[in-house]
């Protein structure tokens, strides 16, 4: 795909609400919001047909900053909530927003099953390798040697590899982006939303307040050496040597999305009691 096509007169500004974000100036999430609105504009979807579902954390504040429908739910359960919504309202575009704490820690179990279920959702995780909203505890993607009050001297634990988990659990589209390249990210989001089934996009989004060291990320990210594959085995090989900063689409699968037929059937209610009749 070369250039994002614009249909109609949709502008990114149409997808922004007038609520001013509380994110710290310098936060990567401002760029992510930009990527969202640019992607929505490129897809020319009416804002009322988009729902942004989130959990708890800095990243999860994003729904209110868009002019779409939103649900700012409880910590870690956004995928479950989104599943219920999408399955009953398949015509809506449902985007789920989370962070590395909300999504990979408390939300970990739901992540596995969302990939497995392959409902047509787009899951965007703003990964900053820290719990920001609660002031700097390690998250599952925090480096083992990173010192915090809750883990003096570092956790010593191997970080979570979300792309590996997504691939192993059956996600149908897997990508990594960097917040500092919002147009690139917007293009990936457009593809992710268009791709049927469960699309997982991890966006590296630096935390200026608790991880000022992440200002280095813009020098560490690099385009992935090869383009996306539709072969899970190939994708698995690539991801095992991934340095965590490969930017691009890793995998585009062809699993059929899960969508039970809803709203069909003749709804003949009197029929239902036949079984009980003596």
């Amino acid at each position, binding site marked *: 795909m070369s250039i994002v096509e614009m249909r109609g007169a949709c502008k990114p500004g149409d997808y922004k609400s007038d609520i*001013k974000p509380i994110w710290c100036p310098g936060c990567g999430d401002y760029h992510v919001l930009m990527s969202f609105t640019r992607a929505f504009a490129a897809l020319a979807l009416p804002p009322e047909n988009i729902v942004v579902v989130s959990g708890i954390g800095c990243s999860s504040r994003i729904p209110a900053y868009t002019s779409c429908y939103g649900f700012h739910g409880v910590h870690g359960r956004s995928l479950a909530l989104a599943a219920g919504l999408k399955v009953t309202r398949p015509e809506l575009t449902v985007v789920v927003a989370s962070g590395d704490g909300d999504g990979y820690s408390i939300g970990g179990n739901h992540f596995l099953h969302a990939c497995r279920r392959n409902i047509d959702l787009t899951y965007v995780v703003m990964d900053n390798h820290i719990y920001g909203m609660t002031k700097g505890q390690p998250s599952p993607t925090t480096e083992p040697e990173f010192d915090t009050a809750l883990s003096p001297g570092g956790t010593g634990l191997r970080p979570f590899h979300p792309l590996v988990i997504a691939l192993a659990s059956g996600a149908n589209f897997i990508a990594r982006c960097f917040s500092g390249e919002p147009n690139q990210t917007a293009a990936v989001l457009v593809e992710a939303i268009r791709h049927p089934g469960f699309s997982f996009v991890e966006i590296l989004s630096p935390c200026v307040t608790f991880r000022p060291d992440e200002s280095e990320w813009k020098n560490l990210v690099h385009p992935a050496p090869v383009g996306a594959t539709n072969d899970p085995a190939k994708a698995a090989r690539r991801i095992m040597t991934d340095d965590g900063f490969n930017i691009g689409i890793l995998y585009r699968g062809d699993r059929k999305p899960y969508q039970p037929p809803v709203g069909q059937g003749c709804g003949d209610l009197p029929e239902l009691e036949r079984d009980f009749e003596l």
Partner: protein
Amino acid sequence: MTVVAGTPKVASLADLFAAAYQIEADAVERYDLLADQMTTHNNPELAAVFRDLSRAEAIHRDEIRRLAEGVDVVAHAQRMAKWGKGESPEAASLEEAHYLMTPWHALQLALAAEHRALAFFRSVAASAKDPAIKKLADEFVEEEAEHVNLVHRLIRKYPKPADSWRSDPDPPVAQE
């Protein structure tokens, strides 16, 4: 791999006007966003600086629109003025923002932005085959060079902040 085209392809005067328009329009939006951030984070001095920068860019933007009479720059830009790698050149860098930043910092951001815009027009001028396009691109180069000079003069008004500019004695607040 999905790659959005790196920079807009300028093949006509309309293209050049549209690209120039979009550059200024993006700069306006960016300075407005930064001004809002500074207002929310109780830095009114910086909010004012960014609003001033936004107003200056708005003048440039409107000027280009006027110059491009006959061309619907807005619609044209929506079609072709796309920056894939990185961002619109004159959009100030968001990652360099900080709630305690000083006017000196803001102007450094502006300076870098103007330089990027200058580089863009220079490359258009250098690669243009059509003399009309080259001429217009050269004019934009001169224009941006003036902006660069202007920002330099503004920077002179502000002392470079001490190393302690970003130290906040109060700790961050856990909101949830």
